[in-house]
């Protein structure tokens, strides 16, 4: 057991826990943030994706000791003051979801990409998202949503 401090969605958190535990389970059980989903536990599906220091990571394969002192952003932290983030709006407007289970991970992966590369090409979006699995087949709309969000976010910056 060790004391691990980090921030989640801007709020400081300090936990006494085993540093080998994976971030996903701490989020879902200790912190009650159930937006990040368990899909495989091996980092092969992307349903658990969150940001750690602005990089999209698989929280099911990220040990707590790697999170110490860092900023974690989950799907719950994306909307600000009740206003949806451009990505969230675009996913909703384009029906970029069906069962919705992969959706938080999809949005967080896309968010990681856009923070790093605000104007990605279609190929760059596909390359980033290829590790995120969706079984319903919402892929076509997800790509459209990410492209639209990239445009909106670029416009907002001007």
């Amino acid at each position, binding site marked *: 057991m060790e004391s691990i401090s980090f921030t989640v969605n801007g709020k400081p958190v300090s936990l006494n826990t085993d540093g080998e*535990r994976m971030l996903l389970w701490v989020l879902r059980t200790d912190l009650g943030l159930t937006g990040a989903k368990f899909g495989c536990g091996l980092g092969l599906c992307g349903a658990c994706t969150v940001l750690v220091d602005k990089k999209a990571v698989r929280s099911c394969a990220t040990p707590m000791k790697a999170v110490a002192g860092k900023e974690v952003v989950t799907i719950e932290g994306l909307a600000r003051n009740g206003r949806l983030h451009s990505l969230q709006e675009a996913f909703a407007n384009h029906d970029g979801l069906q069962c*919705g*289970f*992969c*959706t938080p991970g999809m949005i967080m992966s896309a968010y990681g990409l856009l923070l790093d590369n605000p104007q990605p090409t279609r190929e760059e979006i596909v390359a980033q998202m290829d590790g995120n*699995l969706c079984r319903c087949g919402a892929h076509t709309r997800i790509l459209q949503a990410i492209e639209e969000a990239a445009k909106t976010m670029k416009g907002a910056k001007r």
Partner: protein
Amino acid sequence: MKVRDYENPDLHDPGAPDALDRREFLQRLGGGIIIFFAVGDAAESLAGQARGGGRGYPTDFNAYLRIGDDGRVSLFTGKIEMGQGPITSLAQMLADELDVSPESVDMVMGDTDRCPWDMGTFGSMTTRFFGPPLRAAGAEARRVLLELASESLKAPVERLTVSNGVVSDKEQKKNTVTYAQLAKGKTIERHVTEKPPLKRPAEFKVIGKPYTRSDAAEKVTGKALYSGDVRAEGMLYAKILRPPAHGAKLTGADTSEAEKAEGAQVVRDGDLIAVLHKHPDEAEKALAKVKAQWDVPEAKVDDKTIFDYLLKNARGGNPVRSGGDLKTGETEAKTIVEETYLNSYVAHSPMETHTALARMDGDKATVWASTQTPFPLKDQVARALNFPPEKVRVITPFVGGGFGGKSPGQQAVEAARLAKLTGKPVQVMWTREEEFFYDSFRPAAVVKIKSGFTASGEIVLWDYNVYFAGSRGAEHFYKIPNHRTVATGEWSGGGGGPHPFATGAWRAPANNTNTFARECQMDIMAVKAGMDPVEFRLKNLSDERMIGVLKAAAEKFGWKPIKGPSGRGLGVSCGIDSGTYVAHIAEVAVNENTGKVQVKRVVCAQDMGLVINPEGAEIQVEGCITMGLGYALTEEIHFKGGEVLDKDFGTYAIPRFSWLPKIETVFIKADDSPAQGGGEPAIICMGALIANAVFDATGVRLYQLPMTPERIKEGLARRTGRPAAA
């Protein structure tokens, strides 16, 4: 849509009814108008439910909707939302009949204490069979409200008009009353004596208009709750000891080390050995400390030998349809084609694994479960706990994908047993490995076809035998004078079958296999006849709806007739499922070095009768096409006897973004035809569509799904000639 609170279901529940009589049910629902109706016109639905061994929709009366004194409309349905979209389309149907906005409809889905009995959500039956009685309920509610408004406004019903739940007098526009005002504090109980007619297509304001998903706001914010997200005071997470193979017997288990793990509780009840902990990851770590010995039966069959094994174990074919005389057909045919088609076991692989939370409250059990069949599950849990069914409540939060795989509810039974044994709320969330192990796979299957055609390209012989896929979609729809279709074995494994593990319904069960075989056979005949594959089909079709979709797909694609293989990489396939007609045309590229197939473009034309939500229908078509790439190209379960060798997405490859073709969808306008199924039909063509396109690209014909790079390369190695470049 309001965000629902699954954590505290009692918040919404005016008194968790047990065995309700009708009066009690009304009292508990409290304020608001409740409309009861008989479901007599859902005869087909009842027949369907009876076929499934179910009880049928209640024949006396049922509440399907409630208009609250806040003006919001609650829609109660035993159907569940797993991505296929009834949360939006059912609300549209009710809203249109009631003349309210779909945004004012709150969906209550899959809660066995609050919703009318339903067999389950499968078979693309929601719109077809639940839709009509729901619309009838809405129409009648509107009628009752108009009568009440007539008294309130002192104006005859004929003079009243409704918009967004506000009734107004056409002659005195300011003379208005809302549904909310009318409903306030009143409960009206009535039978339907004379049913008001349903709206005609010309009167629709909501039906037929595209609506994006009403659950999107919940799902993009992470607020949408799935079974694994429901929390209960003092709950524990359980991890269960699993056998290494189906059929394995536990001969010994030492749990002492697991018991020493801090905070872990080991439960043993017969063969059920579970470790419970307040953290799921700690439970999993402790479970790994259990030392178990298993007696594993010798493997009799694997994924290579399965097809011979199935044929050896085939018993008692079920005649599906026949006509004419096969001997006559053989005599009349100039060319006879005899082929065998194979497909492997395929997993459902929903992104959400089977999950449930069970909580005991005195002598009652409440189970939150990812299930397609809440009502049958309620009975299953009751049997497992030895409880009367009325003491079990199943609540279905959002389901993270089902595709037929979440009809079995083993995980809910496990959670309920553990909750009863420990007295604490218990969550069971399967690992991905457990999900693959216990999945009810789409069965491996064999289809044998002998068919023949005349010198002018008319099919005169069709002798069709399908083994173990099932009969759905086995029946051909071409004009063939001499034909026989026989189905041996159904997709439901159900014990005693030759499969080494469970099999079950997989999105459009049986039809994927049958359409693959039939439409490949059509293509092979077209090639041998020296005809274009679209023209060959049209020549042998008389069904106007099928001709309609095929022509529509060809037109949208820009099809130019040519005899195959043309080198263009184009394929065609068509079929019927759940009352819906589909025709697909695709373009593929085959990398002859790697054997990889890239599907570049798919056009789908679909005739599904009245389209309730064109947006929802379109995303279902896209979903079908995208998901169908998997069983066509990569998905097959590897196994050795009862041991399932695929345990994760590392070896079991499902479609990814990089596989994505351009998808174009055309709906045939058929507003006057009843609405048909939409969640499954467009997936049935994918096997033959790609197989035919691969043949057109390379001249290599594959008879087995999936068409993995290895199989493509094997085919290329056997190839004698190659098609001319387009």
